[in-house]
């Protein structure tokens, strides 16, 4: 059973003092008028509590965009381990927690990915509630509530943050400063319940999620993929911004004399033309249509084996970042379900979420 506490929002500074003692704190920071990014912060004033979706999801902390796996010279190989200092990741919304859970599943499967696991296991994760905008559709993907993968989860209940502690490490943090936290009283528990009911009513961008994986599988040959593929620029924007795109490439970087170097891994994208190419230049997914529907299948149907679940978490990042407007997942699902004609366009069902 979880433990439930609360603390006054006006004490958020003390909360940050507390987590800063654990290690470097990463939190959403405003980086432009309309964009946010997870960055190291030293106090709460740097944090953009209003941030809904950061440009890159928090996977970047554990699955680095570029990292050295090992260094080598003529005689030996030296493994490069990720830094071992503890860190805190603050302000993770439910969709991103669900994304991390997908990443955990992939990278903890045998054989475990030591680099990801080492980074992941030294990081305390503190979730934060949010209210959806017109691009969010986590409710349709069933990822709209925090289920696992966090140590503490803070829900904004007005004057206070309601705190769920899910792990011994989370509880230890609370125990280390009992004057800040008090056990959640009945009124706070009621406000917590009301918040999540209210939040579920705020979604305007949604679809009926019944059996979507089967529908996506059934519609593998749908002409919609051709129409979307013809508009796809194969820029690969949709993959780095996706909380569950975990593909990577491994490359050798050699010194000028060719005697030493390092082996690195870098984020890769299934939307790039060379992704499924084999030696001899045979390409198993030569066209944008092949690549786009492959990506959609991974997100909405999932890979059958060994994991067998859809990986989209409904964060809306791909929808926002696609320059061709073809990553409107909700619009695509509605069309595949036969509920909307394509002429009505992606924006048709996106209401204004200002009431929430």
């Amino acid at each position, binding site marked *: 059973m979880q433990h439930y506490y609360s603390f006054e929002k006006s004490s958020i500074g003390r909360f940050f003092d507390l987590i800063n003692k654990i290690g470097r704190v990463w939190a959403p920071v405003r980086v432009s008028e309309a964009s946010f990014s997870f960055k190291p912060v030293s106090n709460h004033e740097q944090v953009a509590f209003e941030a809904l979706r950061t440009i890159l999801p928090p996977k970047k902390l554990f699955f680095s965009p570029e990292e050295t796996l090992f260094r080598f010279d003529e005689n030996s190989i030296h493994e490069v381990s990720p830094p071992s200092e503890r860190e805190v990741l603050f302000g993770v919304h439910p969709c991103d927690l669900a994304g991390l859970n997908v990443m955990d599943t992939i990278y903890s499967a045998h054989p*475990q990915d030591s*680099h990801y696991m*080492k980074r992941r296991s030294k990081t305390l994760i503190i979730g934060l509630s949010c209210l959806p905008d017109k691009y969010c559709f986590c409710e349709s993907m069933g990822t709209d509530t925090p289920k696992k993968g966090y140590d503490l989860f803070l829900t904004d209940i007005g004057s206070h943050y309601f705190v769920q502690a899910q*792990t011994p490490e989370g509880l230890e943090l609370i125990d280390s400063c009992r004057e800040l936290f008090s056990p959640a009283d009945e009124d706070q528990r009621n406000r917590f319940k009301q918040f999540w009911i209210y939040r579920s009513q705020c979604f305007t961008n949604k679809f009926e999620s019944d059996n979507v994986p089967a529908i996506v599988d059934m519609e593998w040959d749908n002409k919609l993929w051709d129409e979307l593929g013809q508009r796809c620029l194969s820029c690969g924007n949709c993959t780095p911004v996706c909380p569950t795109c975990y593909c990577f490439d491994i490359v050798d970087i*050699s010194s000028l004399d*060719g005697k030493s170097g390092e082996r690195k891994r870098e984020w890769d994208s299934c939307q790039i033309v060379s992704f499924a190419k084999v*030696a001899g230049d*045979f390409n198993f997914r030569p066209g944008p249509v092949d690549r786009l529907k492959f990506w959609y299948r991974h997100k909405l149907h999932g890979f059958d084996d*060994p994991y067998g679940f859809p990986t989209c978490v409904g964060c809306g990042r791909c929808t926002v970042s696609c320059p061709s407007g073809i990553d409107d997942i909700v619009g695509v699902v509605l069309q595949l379900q036969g509920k909307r004609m394509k002429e009505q366009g992606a924006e048709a069902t996106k209401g204004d979420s200002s009431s929430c």
Partner: protein
Amino acid sequence: MLKVKQNLQSPFIPHWAIIRSITNLSEDNTLFELQIEDGDFSECKPGQFVQLWLPGVGESPISVCSAKVGETIELCIRRVGRVTNALFLLNEGERVGLRGPFGTGFPLEKYKGKNLCLIAGGLGIAPIRSLLQHVLLNREDYGKLILIYGLRHSAQLLFRHELKHVLRRRDIEVFISAEEIRGPDLPPMSMQLGRVTDMLSLAPVDESYEIAICGPPVMYKYVVQGLKAKGVKENSIWLSLERHMKCGMGKCGHCFVGGRFTCMQGPVFNLTELRFLPEAIECEGTESC
């Protein structure tokens, strides 16, 4: 916080091996015998693959080419990409890296006691050779044996000397063909003019046979059609798929086929399984196959 195993080792670290011998098999294909310096590759099975690493160049997935892997491992490699081009510049005594073995391999236990037909197209002979060696080493465990080996050009014939020995055996029927017999030299050994599928129609394959296939992607559709025409059951057909395996551990995503990691659940798949995987082979899900 996520728990992590104590002393978790990086699965990306290769083992060293030394090139012990280099045997040219044809213009672009060479058999490399590697002496394993550290690491244990004795579990390698026919149909599995290893990652061959050239420091500073990169890795390339290569099929295990011999039935037995002990202190040495044999890899039949075509000079076709960045890594293999660099490999062909190396000499005996030079060092390379190896990771693996990866993948499932051919279902040796399922094949036991059955008639067996091995079908190779081009460089597909590399993994088929390891299976053939295994069957010949354990000949009493298997029934009738057929080898079909198709080439585009007669000059591309690989393992000529070994095949001559195999041709002399009475416990295996061998069908070798080339689509083009290239001059001015005579073909390295007796072979027929035609495609793999022509050889298949000549071979006495029937529904009692288990099949192992490895070749270029374009070949599968026609070979499967030919096998079905002969009454071979779908669940007796096993195909080795080519994809660009990079990590070998079901993580990097490059080898996804439909919903499977070729590097983990393959590269050898049963045809019944492939029919559920979109984009696996050209004939997937269509009535034509």
